[in-house]
């Protein structure tokens, strides 16, 4: 009762700060914030607030920090690991209304944006200057720059251009106690003699503070683009083609592979792109650069396709063709929605040279657990996205899905890789973190988090497993239990 009274007071103060229209508390209104793209984990927050400026974010954070109420920053909610999913006591600080491009410098090639600016909207905003923002997660038409910063997002073109951390030059951050922190700036992310605070902030999944202004590097558009699609009779042939392309010193803008199950899902959907359904795999190679160079590089790629027995090679000769070839790749996750009611998008990394081994292992794990598995992945980076289609209403299917996911991530680690290449840990992988790190490693990470987030109020329960879970080292049943009982009684 006392707790409810205290919360009512806080809600009243939030309304005082933002107005009633930007403080949501009714159960119906909160439904849209009960999960992100990781739909396995659902939890409705206590309230959602919609600030529109740094000053408002700061006011909200101070108010909640003073009251000891946890809070969770959120962009578009396209995260795939439960990062912005709030617990039942927490308030979501939704930044989607902070969507202004504040400044663009075409001379010094940077932009300053609010965190709610949609990734692709920034590229549209600077397109007329021959510029673009390079990181391009598959959700780029919806996801926000603030969310990208929090997750250190990647995307198909990060093989050549790097991840979000490589493109963020500075940030204005509201720390979890309401203090303002300015990191880096247009001239660079770190001054001489300074620690790389921006480097460790990027990818901290909203647990170190809330970025309210972000300075990003803009890239000059290349003269031309060549997009080639090779179809192969076997997945190993496609993987070896990738190895040869990279070994030759070529640096394509993107190297993407889709397996047969994905191709068929795409071709049966509105994302139909004309991919050959009899192929075991298709490899999408995008080259960009000066026109003369492109012709030579495209010829080299074709020679590698031929060496590995490509069944068919297509090359986009105009923007419409390029769009078509990408349509299937960009729409792959949407297309998989046809296969079942739910989709578990996994994210793991292996050394590029071990892709074949990893894919064989993934297939075996899928068979063992009897799950429907598809693969679409960033082959150049060794960043796998095995996808499991399942019916989330069926607890057994869900449990088998999660068990298979757990084993796939262990496989990635065993092959020398990582449990996440671009989706983050969130809540999804709390039980998998110990596959990569021991208690000493996690204790150091905890110390760093505490330096930013002393009271642990900012996005609690994410990234690092709690000490209470230590006894259950790397045991997937924990995760299954959480799925079957998503909000355990306290």
């Amino acid at each position, binding site marked *: 009762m006392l707790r409810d009274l205290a919360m009512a007071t806080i809600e009243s103060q939030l309304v005082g700060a933002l107005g009633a229209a930007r403080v949501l508390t009714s159960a119906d209104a909160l439904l849209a914030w009960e999960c992100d793209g990781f739909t396995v984990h659902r939890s409705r927050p206590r309230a959602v607030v919609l600030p529109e400026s740094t000053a408002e974010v700061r006011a909200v954070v101070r108010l909640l920090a003073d009251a000891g109420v946890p809070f969770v920053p959120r962009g578009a909610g396209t995260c795939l690991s439960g990062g912005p999913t709030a617990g039942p006591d927490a308030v979501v600080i939704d930044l989607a209304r902070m969507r202004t491009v504040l400044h663009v410098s075409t001379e010094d090639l940077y932009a300053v944006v609010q965190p709610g600016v949609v990734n692709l909207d920034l590229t549209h905003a600077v397109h007329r200057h021959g510029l673009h923002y390079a990181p391009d997660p598959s959700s780029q038409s919806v996801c926000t720059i603030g969310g990208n910063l929090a997750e250190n997002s990647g995307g198909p073109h990060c093989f050549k251009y790097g991840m979000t*951390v490589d493109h963020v030059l500075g940030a204005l951050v509201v720390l979890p106690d309401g203090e*303002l922190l300015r990191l880096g700036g247009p001239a660079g992310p770190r001054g*001489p003699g300074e620690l790389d*605070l921006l480097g460790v902030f990027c990818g901290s999944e909203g647990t170190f503070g809330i970025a309210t202004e972000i300075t990003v590097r803009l890239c000059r558009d290349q003269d031309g683009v060549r997009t080639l699609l090779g179809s192969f009779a076997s997945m190993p042939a496609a993987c070896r083609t990738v190895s040869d392309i990279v070994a030759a010193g070529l640096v394509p803008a993107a190297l993407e592979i889709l397996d047969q199950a994905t191709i068929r899902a795409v071709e049966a959907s509105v994302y139909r792109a004309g991919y050959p359904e009899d192929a075991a795999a298709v490899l999408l190679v995008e080259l960009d650069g000066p026109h003369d160079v492109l012709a030579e590089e495209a010829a080299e790629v074709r020679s590698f396709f031929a060496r590995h027995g490509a069944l068919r090679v297509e090359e986009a000769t105009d923007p419409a063709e390029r769009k078509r070839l990408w349509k299937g790749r960009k729409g792959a996750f949407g297309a998989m929605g046809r296969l079942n009611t739910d989709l578990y998008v996994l994210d793991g990394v292996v050394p590029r040279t071990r892709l074949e081994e990893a894919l064989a292992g993934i297939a075996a794990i899928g068979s063992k657990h009897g799950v429907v598995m598809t693969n679409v992945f960033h082959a150049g980076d060794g960043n796998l996205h095995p996808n499991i289609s399942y019916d989330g209403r069926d607890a057994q299917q869900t449990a088998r899905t999660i068990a298979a996911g757990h084993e796939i991530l262990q496989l990635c680690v065993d092959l020398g890789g990582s*449990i*996440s290449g671009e989706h983050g840990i969130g809540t999804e992988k709390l039980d998998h973190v110990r596959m990569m790190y021991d208690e000493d490693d996690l204790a150091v990470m905890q110390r760093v988090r505490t330096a930013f987030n002393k009271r642990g109020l900012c996005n609690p329960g994410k990234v690092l497993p709690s000490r209470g879970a230590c006894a259950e080292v790397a045991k997937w049943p924990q995760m299954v239990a959480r799925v079957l009982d998503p909000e355990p009684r306290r």
Partner: protein
Amino acid sequence: MSTTPELGAAAPRSRAELQDLLRATTGPIRLVGGGSRQHRLPDPADALRVRLDGLASLDRLDGPDQTCSVDCGLPRSELDAALAPLGLELPCPGQGTLGGLFAADPIGAATSDGPSPRTLLLGAEAVLADGTPFRSGARVVKSVAGFDVHKLVVGSVGRLFVVTRLHLRLKPRPRAEQWFENGGLALSEALALVQRLRQLATGVLALQLERDSDGRCSVRGRIGGRAAFVRELVRAQGLAASACTWRDQAITGPHDEVLAMQVLPSQLPALLAAVPATPTLLWHGGNRCELVLAGSNHSDAVLAVLPSLSLGARIVGGPPERRGRSTPADAATTRLTRDLASTLDPNGRFV
């Protein structure tokens, strides 16, 4: 473990020896790689110098995956020699041991969109001041698992923990390359060339502007790509082909002080207009800049005026007692830096 008593130094030859050393001692410690950058750090007074150049293995070199793992004391030149036959390179400027290069990050990137130590460091193995080992990051080219504590080593100059092993991303060497230097330019001409090259979408792998004490400027850099493309770019931009004349540091005299800062080329005219006399200046393409000033009076005057230009700087060269002085830092940055140091090195042993 070997020791050199006359220098007050210890030189562990393995991570285990380093851990034993840290556990067995209690006083302040100055970490030293090859020692090439010590003249740019504040005086460590009577701290125990711990030399790390005994940890010098190339632990793993995966050419097809374009990654490697190196001990902190491995000289960069040895890594370069191992990479050359594979057609690979570590695409950031700087010399010395790899641990020292990454911990100091004295240059940053060679171009505004080029790789730098912070983007090439994939993960690390490290040891805290109390001897506790830990890992962060991964060996693969992409990983967002856990917090990137390893990023904190970049620029830390050994103040937080000892990085004993670094996992690095490598890149293919361009098929053809050409260094150039266009000298004898007025500042405006040099800046125009720099801005023109920065606006190119591809091909410029390193860029540097140097201004001498007479006010004349040189623009130098490296072009890479396919042979015909490189030849055409050199021709089209009017670049004067040369041997490599890249400098990691500005040239200084015995009484000079060096200020390091981040500055955009578009800010250079205002900076130089606000500076007394005619300083030597070395600007790297990633916007790191060194300003060489004739003594402390000039340095202090520049430090005082920089905030009005929204610029910050730190003295990195000059008398030991002057090194480390800087323009005032943002209060939250100062607090956070202090908190990170005190949580990772609670007794302040690393100096």
